C-alpha cells in the first residue's frame, strides 16, 4: 500500500499493469468555496477494476462525471484513451463518450420509454443506418446478458430496483464501451441483489474486457470487484492498494471503512 504516492503514467504503456486508459494529473474542482477535488492523481489500466472509496461529499461522483465531461475541470490534466479531455469539443467529445459507459446511481432510465426503447435509444443515435433486425438482435442480446429477457416491453417504473440497475447496465453496454464508470451500483439494494450486481460487474469486465472505475460505499462490492482500491480524503488520493492491503492498514481512518 502506498500513501500519497500514486504513480504517474500518462503516456506510459506499463508492461506490468497494462495499457493506461485513464490518467489524471493534479485534478482540481471547486464549487464556490467548496474545494471538492484538490489534487487528484490516478491511473486506470486496461481491463482493471478500480474501486474509489471515500466519505460522502468527498467528490467521488464529481471525479467520474469529469471523466465523461459532465463537469468541467478547474485545473489538471485528464487523458482518456490517449486523448486529452480539455482539448475535446463537439463531435470529438461525443466520439469519446461513445467509448465510455456510465451507470448512474439512480439508473437514469428514460421513464417515458419502454425497456426496448431505452435500449434502442443510444443505438438509433449512434448507428443510424442499422437495420431493424440487427437492432432487435442487439437489444435482445443486451437484455439476455443482464438476465432481463422477459421484460422487454414493459415500462421502467414496473421494474424493481435491481432490475433497473441491470437495465441501466444493459443500456450502457449496448454500445460496447471500453471504459465503464459505476456510480454507487449497489446503493439501495438488498444484499442478495447487491451480490448479483457485483457479479455482473465482474462478468462485464470478463466478457467486454472493460476497464472500470467503481464508486461505492459497499465494502462487500469493493471486495468482490476491485483489482485495486483508492481512498479519497480531503480532495486527494489518500491511499491506494488492494482490498487486503487496505483491510490490514494500521491507519485508523482507513480501518474505519472495513469495520
Amino acid at each position, binding site marked *: 500500500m502506498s500513501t500519497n504516492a500514486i504513480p504517474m503514467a500518462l503516456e506510459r504503456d506499463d508492461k506490468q499493469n497494462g495499457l493506461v486508459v485513464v490518467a489524471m494529473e493534479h485534478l482540481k474542482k471547486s464549487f*464556490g468555496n467548496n474545494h471538492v477535488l484538490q489534487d487528484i492523481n490516478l491511473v486506470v489500466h486496461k481491463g482493471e477494476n478500480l474501486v474509489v472509496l471515500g466519505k460522502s461529499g468527498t467528490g467521488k461522483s464529481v471525479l467520474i462525471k469529469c471523466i465523461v465531461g*459532465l463537469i468541467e475541470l478547474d485545473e489538471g490534466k485528464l487523458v482518456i484513451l490517449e486523448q486529452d479531455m480539455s482539448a475535446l469539443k463537439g463531435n470529438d467529445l*461525443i466520439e469519446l463518450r461513445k467509448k465510455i459507459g456510465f451507470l*448512474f446511481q439512480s439508473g437514469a432510465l428514460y421513464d417515458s420509454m419502454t425497456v426496448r426503447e431505452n435500449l434502442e435509444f443510444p443505438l438509433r443515435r449512434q448507428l443510424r443506418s442499422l437495420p431493424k433486425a440487427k437492432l432487435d438482435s442487439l437489444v435482445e442480446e443486451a437484455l439476455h446478458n443482464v438476465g432481463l429477457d422477459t421484460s422487454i416491453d414493459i415500462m421502467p417504473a414496473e421494474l424493481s430496483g435491481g432490475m433497473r440497475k441491470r437495465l441501466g447496465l444493459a443500456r*450502457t453496454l449496448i454500445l460496447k464501451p471500453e471504459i465503464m464508470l459505476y456510480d454507487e451500483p449497489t446503493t439501495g439494494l438488498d444484499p442478495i441483489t447487491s451480490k448479483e450486481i457485483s457479479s455482473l460487474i465482474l462478468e462485464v469486465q470478463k466478457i467486454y474486457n472493460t476497464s472500470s472505475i467503481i464508486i461505492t460505499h459497499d465494502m462487500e462490492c469493493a471486495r468482490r470487484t476491485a483489482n485495486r482500491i483508492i481512498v479519497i480524503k480531503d480532495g486527494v488520493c489518500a491511499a491506494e492498494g488492494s482490498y487486503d492491503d487496505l483491510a490490514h492498514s494500521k491507519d485508523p481512518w482507513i480501518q474505519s471503512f472495513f469495520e
Partner: protein
Amino acid sequence: MEEPILNQSQAERHDAKIISEVVSETISTSVIDKFFLEVASFSIFTLRFFKDVFRPPYELNELAKQAFLIGYKSLPLVGITGFIIGLVLTIQSRPTLANFGAESWLPAMVAVSIIREIGPVITALIFAGKVGSGIGAELASMNVTEQIDAMQVSGTNPFNYLVVTRVLSTTLMLPLLVVYADVIGLFGSFVGVNLSGDVTVYLFFSQIFQSLEFQDVFPAIIKTFFFGFAVGLVGCYQGYNSNKGTEGVGKAANSAVVFASLMVFIIDVIAVQITNLLQN
C-alpha cells in the same frame, strides 16, 4: 486526530450543509445581479437554440411525437375554451350594443375581437398553462433523475433531442390551435346570438366575413408563432436549468407558466404596436 467516517444520516446532513452554503451564497447576490444573470443565461439558451436547430442530426420522429402531444392533445381544452369565450362574449356584449341600436353589429364585433386579440392571447395563455408547465416539469424531472446526463454520456445531444423538438412543436402547433379556437369561438358566438334571436348560419358568417379584412387575420396569426416560440423556449429553459430536487420540478413548472404568460403579454404589446405602425 483523524476525522471519523460519517454514517448515512451524518453524510446527508453534511450534504445539506454544503447545499445551504451554496444557497446562502446565491441569496446574498443582489436581486439586480440575479436578474441580469438570468437574462444573460436565457439569451445564451436562445442563441443555442438557433445554433442547434440547423445542426444535424434532425430528430424528426421526436418532433412529430411532440407535435402530436402538444398540438392534438390540446384540442379538447382549447376547443372548450374557445367555445365558451365566443358564447360569453356574445351574451355579455349584446345588451350594450342593443342600447346603441347596434345589435346587428354583434357578429362582426365578436369576430374581430376573437380573431384579432382574444383568440390568440387566451389560447396562448391556456397553452402556457398546459404545455409550458408540462415541458418545464418534464425536463426538470429528467434533470433530477439524471436522464439528461444519461443522454449526454451516451453521445446524444440532449439539447437537440429535448429542447429543439419541443420549441419547434410549440411554435408550429400554437398557430393551428389558435385558428381552431377562433373557429370554435365563432360557433360559440353563433350559439350565443341564437339564444335570444334567430340568425341563420349563412347570415351570421356572411356578416363576419364582410367585416373581416386581411389585416385583421394575418398579423394575429403571425404573432401566435412568436407566442408558441416563447412558451416552448421558456418551458424548456426552466426545465433544462432547474435545480436538482423535487422542489426544483415544481418551481420549474410554476416559473414556466408565469414567465411564458408574461412573455405572451409583452410580445402582444409589441405586435400590436408594430401592426398599428404598419397600418398607418
